[in-house]
Structures are given as C-alpha cells and as structure tokens.
C-alpha cells in the first residue's frame, strides 16, 4: 500500500542508526576537565618536543579568552568543556605494531564499519589511516608510498619524525586563534593524519582516513595536515562514524591543506557521525574548521557528503592566494529528525584570475533545519576573479526548514559573481509516478534524492560515491510526507 504521511513518519522514527555499536576495547582515558596540566599531559603522553607543548599551551591560553560562537543557525545545549575527557586511547594501540598485531576486537570493529585494513584495500588502491577515539591505529601502505617519497602517517608520529614540516605548516592556514573550536583543537588534539606529497609526484592511490569515536564522554579532536608540494597531485578521502549514545559527543577537528604552486588536492569527506535518535537525543556535535591555501596555479576541491551529527558547524574554505588558483566546493548535506546543519564554504579570492565554484545541495526531512552559509570575498587586487555558486534545497514533509545565507563581498570591479538558488519538495505525485512504474516508495525517494545530488556525487571517487549513495538512502528512508 502507498504510504500516508503518518505511516511514513512512524517508519522514519523506527529507522535506526546503522553504525551504532560499541566495541569493548580496553582504553586509557584521562580524567575529565581541561587546564594547563591536561594540555601538558597530552603532550607528554605523545612524547612531543618542547616546541609543540608550547604551541599547545599558547592555543589553550587563547581559547580560555574566547567565547563560543553563536552566529550559526543552530540551537543546542552548550557542551560543558570541563566534563569532557580530552584523551582516550585504545590501550592496545602501539604505533610500532604491524597490522597482524592489531587487537582482534578492533579489527572486528573495522569489519562492522565496512573497512578492511588488509589486502582488500590493496585491490582498491586505498591507503588507510584509522583514528579511533583519539589515536591513530593503523596506517597501511606506508612502504608503497615511501617509495614515491610520500609521507602518510599519524600526525603524532610526524611531529617526531618530520618536525621541520609540521613546524613550518601547522597553524599556517588555521592559526590557533582562528576560532573557538580551532583554538581548542590546537590545545588538545591527540592525533590525526599527516600527509606530504613531494614535488611533481602524482599520488598513485587514494589516501584515506577513518575517524571513529568509541569511548563514552570523550571528545575527538583530530588534526589533519596535508601538504601538496609544487606540481603534485593527491586525492584524499575521509570517513567518519560514531556509536549511538544518549549523551552528545563532541568532535572538533581542524584540517589544513596546503597546495603549493601548480599542485592539486581533492579532499572528499563522507561524514556519518551518530545524528541522535528520533527525539533528538544524543548525537555528535561536529564543529570543524577546514581550510586550504592555494598558491599559484594550484587547485583544491572539497567534496563533502554530510549525513550525520546532531549539530554540524562546518565551512571548508579556500584561500585563493596565488594567481590563477582554483577553489571548488561540492556539498550534499542531509538532515533528518532533529538534526541541524549550518554548513557551506568561504572562497577568499586574493590572486588574479582566481576562480571558484560552489555547488551545494541541502536535503531536509523530519523536523530538521538545514542552512547553507557561504562567503565569496573578492579582494581589491584580485583582478578577473570569477565565482559561480549554486545552492539547491530539497524538502521532505512540512516540518523541516532550508535556509540559504550567501554573503558576497566584492572589492574589485572586474569580478564576476553568479549565484543561483532553488528550493523544491519531493511531491506525492513524483512518488506515485514512480510507484506506477513498479518502483516502491523507498526506492523512489532514493532515486529522486540521487538525481538531486548527482552533480556532487559525480565528484566523488567511485567506491566512495557508492557508499555515499547508500548513506543517503539510509538517512532518508521513509521520510516523505
């Protein structure tokens, strides 16, 4: 039988988060609370050099003087930063271990997540770094990559092994004082991925990081630093999941991308943190700062599929510093139930003939609120800068909201800026049309949503696109009113 609105709602409520399992791995967790001692203790635990400890402390002092931002179109109970534990590591993690030594429970967890850390990945040509709670557990393919001079390792190791690179670039795109969450991250980050692609090297495989929060009452603050040296190329994937819990979990990451002259970085994210249950309880608070700097003729593409988190606050941005540099942002943000997303991008045009493209697709269902917030800024010296923005919203039902906040600041008369926006709703007539052709309602929604998101899905690497499509289907099953 075709669905009535009531039936659909009911079904939607019973749809459970697919990745909501908890793996019982012994872990080493710090007491809750944040002060200078904790910051120093984290640094010590990671056996960091003194300059890093000082950098963290500097960040902590800045953070203390800052206020949590309130301008985003999201409403939530502010996390109590003194009730969070800032370090949680699976006890059996030892950076010197090979894959064979990895805790079988951990491996089982990867299996549930659909990640295979072994030969399968070799076939798929993906090198993976996995961060569970706060610690990087396994980095595959180190050797293959090393032959090309590519460095891909947990940032905690890079701090020790390549201090000159880390010291030079960390905080160069997102300084400690950038914003409240970035400052917090700078003080307490425990791990993340580090990647360096040497001059003229095309990275032969997709690099990938999986983040997962496992332990209750912990925050995850990972830090990713990716440097593409002159004329190099890399495609980087990032996936995220968390178990379902009643309390909100905090995730405040910082990602810095550096694309030197002529380099190209593709950075793709499929974010599937626990979104909270159907009453809006629990879920991850996702406050992330992602930014890239593009030197001359460099190109950075951000592609993101955001289906999870209770609250998302995230604006992957590009500073188009060098002449002829290109910034791209392709985004699909799905919100359902009580989820709130305030996401978008900033394109800062500093160099001449810089180009940026923004394609944002927002899909809202249930009682959720989905906002696009974007800034296109053309500096006075940026002659011939061009931007094209397109923001489309798709609504399901009558209780959700879609909002668009485009900001444009043009200080150069030669700038060309285009902005397009549409809002549409999945209609009963579309569903019935599909039903009449033998396609059931679930499949019909998936078909319509995929059609709507196609321009962005096409930008993802193949195997990721398939996963993203599935995620869209799971997140929206039965959500047409």
């Amino acid at each position, binding site marked *: 039988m075709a669905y009535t609105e009531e039936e659909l709602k009911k079904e939607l409520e019973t749809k459970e988060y697919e990745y909501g399992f908890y793996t019982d791995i012994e872990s080493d967790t710090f007491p809750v609370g944040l002060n200078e001692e904790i910051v120093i203790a984290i640094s010590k635990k990671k056996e960091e050099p003194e300059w890093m400890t000082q950098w963290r402390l500097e960040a902590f002092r800045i953070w203390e003087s800052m206020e949590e931002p309130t301008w985003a179109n999201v409403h939530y109970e502010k996390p109590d930063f003194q009730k969070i534990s800032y370090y949680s590591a699976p006890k059996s993690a030892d950076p010197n271990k090979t894959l064979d030594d990895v805790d079988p429970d951990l491996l089982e967890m990867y299996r549930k997540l659909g990640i295979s850390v072994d030969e399968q990945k070799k076939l798929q040509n993906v090198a993976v770094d996995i961060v569970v709670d706060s610690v990087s557990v396994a980095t595959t393919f180190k050797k293959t990559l090393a032959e090309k001079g590519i460095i891909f390792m947990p940032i905690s190791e890079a701090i020790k092994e390549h201090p000159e690179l880390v010291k030079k670039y960390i905080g160069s795109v997102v300084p400690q004082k950038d914003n409240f969450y970035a400052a917090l991250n700078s003080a307490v980050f425990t791990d993340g991925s580090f990647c360096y692609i040497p001059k003229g090297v095309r990275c032969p495989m997709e690099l990938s990081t999986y983040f997962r929060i496992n332990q209750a009452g912990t925050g995850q603050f990972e830090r990713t630093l990716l440097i593409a040296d002159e004329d190099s190329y890399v495609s980087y994937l990032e996936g995220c999941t968390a178990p379902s819990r009643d309390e909100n979990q905090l995730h405040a990451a910082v990602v810095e991308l550096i694309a030197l002259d002529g380099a190209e970085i593709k950075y793709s994210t499929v974010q599937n943190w626990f979104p909270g249950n159907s009453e809006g309880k629990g879920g991850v608070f996702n406050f992330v700062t992602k930014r890239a700097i593009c030197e001359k003729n460099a190109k950075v593409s951000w592609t993101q599929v955001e289906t999870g988190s209770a609250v998302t606050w995230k604006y992957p941005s590009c500073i188009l510093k060098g002449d002829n540099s290109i910034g791209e942002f392709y985004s699909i943000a799905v919100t359902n139930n009580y989820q709130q997303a305030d996401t978008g991008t900033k394109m800062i045009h500093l160099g001449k003939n810089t180009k940026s493209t923004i394609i944002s697709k927002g899909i809202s269902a249930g009682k959720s609120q989905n906002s696009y917030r974007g800034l296109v800024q053309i500096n006075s010296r940026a002659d011939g800068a061009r931007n094209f923005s397109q923001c489309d919203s798709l609504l399901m039902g009558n209780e959700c909201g879609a909002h668009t906040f485009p900001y444009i600041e043009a200080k150069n008369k030669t700038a060309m800026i285009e902005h397009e926006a549409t809002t549409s709703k999945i209609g009963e007539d579309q569903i019935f*049309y*599909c039903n*009449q052709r*033998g396609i059931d309602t679930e499949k019909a929604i998936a078909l319509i949503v995929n059609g709507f998101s196609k321009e962005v899905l096409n930008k993802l690497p193949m195997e990721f696109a398939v996963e993203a499509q599935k995620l869209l289907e799971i997140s929206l099953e039965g959500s047409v009113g």
Partner: protein
Amino acid sequence: MLKIKDLHASVDDKEILRGINLEVKAGEVHAIMGPNGSGKSTLASVIAGNERFEVTQGSIELSGEDLEEVSPEERAHKGVFLSFQYPVEIPGVSVTNFMKTAINESRKAKGLEDMPAKDMLKLIREKSELLEIDRKFLSRSLNEGFSGGEKKRNEIFQMAMLEPKVAILDETDSGLDIDALRIVASGVNKLKSKDNAVILITHYQRLLEYIVPDFVHVLHNGKIVKSGGKELALELEEKGYDWLKQETAV
C-alpha cells in the same frame, strides 16, 4: 482481464465515481470519453491504485484477482500501466536510469535477477526505434524541459519497455501535433496484441481515427451513461455531449 464492478470512489469526501461497471478483455481496445469533470482521469488513477482517492464501494479485478489490497507498485508488477496526462519531472534521473530501475524492480518482485546490461540496451534500442525517439533524448532528465509532445511520447516509450497487460492512456493525444500523434498511435498499434488490452481516455474523436476502439463508453457524472461501438465516437463528435447529459437527467 480487467473487471470493474459498481466502483465508487471519492476524494476529500467528494464522490467522483458513482458506480462504474466495465469489463475489458484481452485483445480489446476501449475508449472512454466524456466531458471535463466527468471522472475519466479519476477512474485511471483509481485503477492504478493512487491512494489519494478512496474506494468506498465496488471492486476492481485483474485476471481474477481483487486489487483492493494491492499497492500501486504491485499493480504495476502485475501489468497495469498508466500513461499520465501530466507526467512529472524528476531532475537528475535520466530516462534510461529510470527505466532500468523500473524494469529491475518488476523483475525483483517476480524473483528474477536484474536484466543484463546487454539485453537492456537491446530493448532500449528496439523500443526507441519503434517510437522514433532520438537516443540522445534517453540521457536527459526524466520529463525535465520536455515539450508536451516529448512527454507523451516518453510515456508510450515506457509502456513499450514495460510491456503491460492493461495500458491506460490518459489523454495521451492532448498536446500532440499531428505528426507526433501518428507516431504515438502507430507505436500503440504495434504494441497491441491478443494478450493485452488498451483503455484510451480522450476528449476527441481524433485519436480514435488512428487507434480504432472496439468499444466506446461515455462517462458522465461518475457513471458510464452510454456504451457502443466505434461509431458512437463519431456521433459524439457530431452532436457533442449535451444530448447525453439531457438523456441521463431524464
């Protein structure tokens, strides 16, 4: 094949169909004519299972099976096809992808594997030639930016792909110029066989010059007020509907 008995249906408590009786056998073509608002499109929607309409009385049987508890998609799997009067747009979903999904969903319901890509391509090639459809057209988003004629032709293309038992063509002729009408009609004629049936819903005699019906029914106020052979359509063309309205009022 299709047996409709004393069918009553309403929308928002307003009764639209007030006791329809109709039997359509395999190999037959029936035309349903009638003035605006007589319930023609509602009848088509109700046969296809649109739940916006509530069936308050009577029954619809397909090959002896009561359709009351059968969902629209299951009706489609069993061979009911509706060519929509106003086909909807689905942006970003190509005609090919849509058809692939529709065919494979039907196959899945019958416990069959997905149709192999090679067979699918062959089928698409065959049927698009039948309806003189440019292959480029098939990669366009479903109905998005299609002209009225293109939309209708696309509906018949889908019918050709799905090979239904009972096809209901709801005002397929409206919005078609004479050339397109000829192509669509010849397509329908080629798809017609002794094993399937066609119900044409139309205002005008014009379509019936190309697809010749075995029976013509006149719908007025939610009831079939007159049935006859193809000559009834000509009579309607000549005299309009008013004489029938008066006749039924008496």
